[in-house]
């Protein structure tokens, strides 16, 4: 008899737990990122993206790395 919003959050939380298992399966050493419950776990990925990921992709020119010139042979 939970209200719809609670059921939605519970479903998002279950989905988060499954996601954490998958994301953590890639950790090979103790410096690798770990994933788990945090303040966003009650949001579905779609809700999270809509609310918190507000930047658009952008194009920038390639950085002109300093040109390396060969040093001529000198005696």
């Amino acid at each position: 008899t939970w209200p719809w919003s609670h059921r939605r959050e519970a479903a998002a939380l279950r989905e988060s737990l499954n996601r954490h298992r998958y994301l953590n399966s890639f950790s090979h050493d103790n410096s690798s990122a770990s994933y788990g419950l945090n303040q966003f776990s009650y949001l579905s990925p779609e809700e999270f993206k809509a609310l918190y990921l507000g930047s658009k992709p952008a194009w920038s020119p390639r950085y002109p790395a300093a040109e390396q010139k060969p040093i001529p042979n000198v005696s």
Partner: protein
Amino acid sequence: LPLRFDWRDKHVVNQVRNQKMCGGCWAFSVVTAIESACAIQGKPLDYLSVQQVIDCSFNNYGCSGGSPLSALSWLNKTQVKLMEDSEYPFKAENGLCRYFPQSQSGVSIKDFSAYDFSGQEDEMAKALLNFGPLVVIVDAVSWQDYLGGIIQHHCSSGEANHAVLITGFDKTGNTPYWMVHNSWGNSWGIDGYAHVKMGGNVCGIADSVSVVFV
């Protein structure tokens, strides 16, 4: 390059803020970079108004999203003076742009530059050292579940959806990483920061890198 460098150690980076339920990361990253650029020049480390950028940067969409490059371009073209945060506080929703008299003190930018540093992250580290914290855009979909450690997988280049600020790097361990200042409050990640592996353009962190000059 030093093995480790962090602008926070120079006391020129403000605390991580919380964008709440407003997709204004693009404005947070730009404003935090401007605050640091001012402090690097010896001015006080003040909090400037993110809300002013959200409300007034007409080429963006406020809390519905935007681009740091468009915001920098707008700041540069209009020479708008950014007010202090206390004068024009953050309210996590779009508002009407407030205008201030020219006599009012504030910070305007002198210029900015933006480059794709993919494949050249050591050059990117040099830019960080020479100019200050870097505004970058990343694919942060998997950051929803991040707790700590060095992000090395589960994100792509070329699919940016979030803007953040790089304040430093650490190459002392087996996995070198960027120190990434986020805007989701300091209870997220490592006191509000994420660590992202250096090299390999992880999460597209080197795809579009901006520096601001004040």
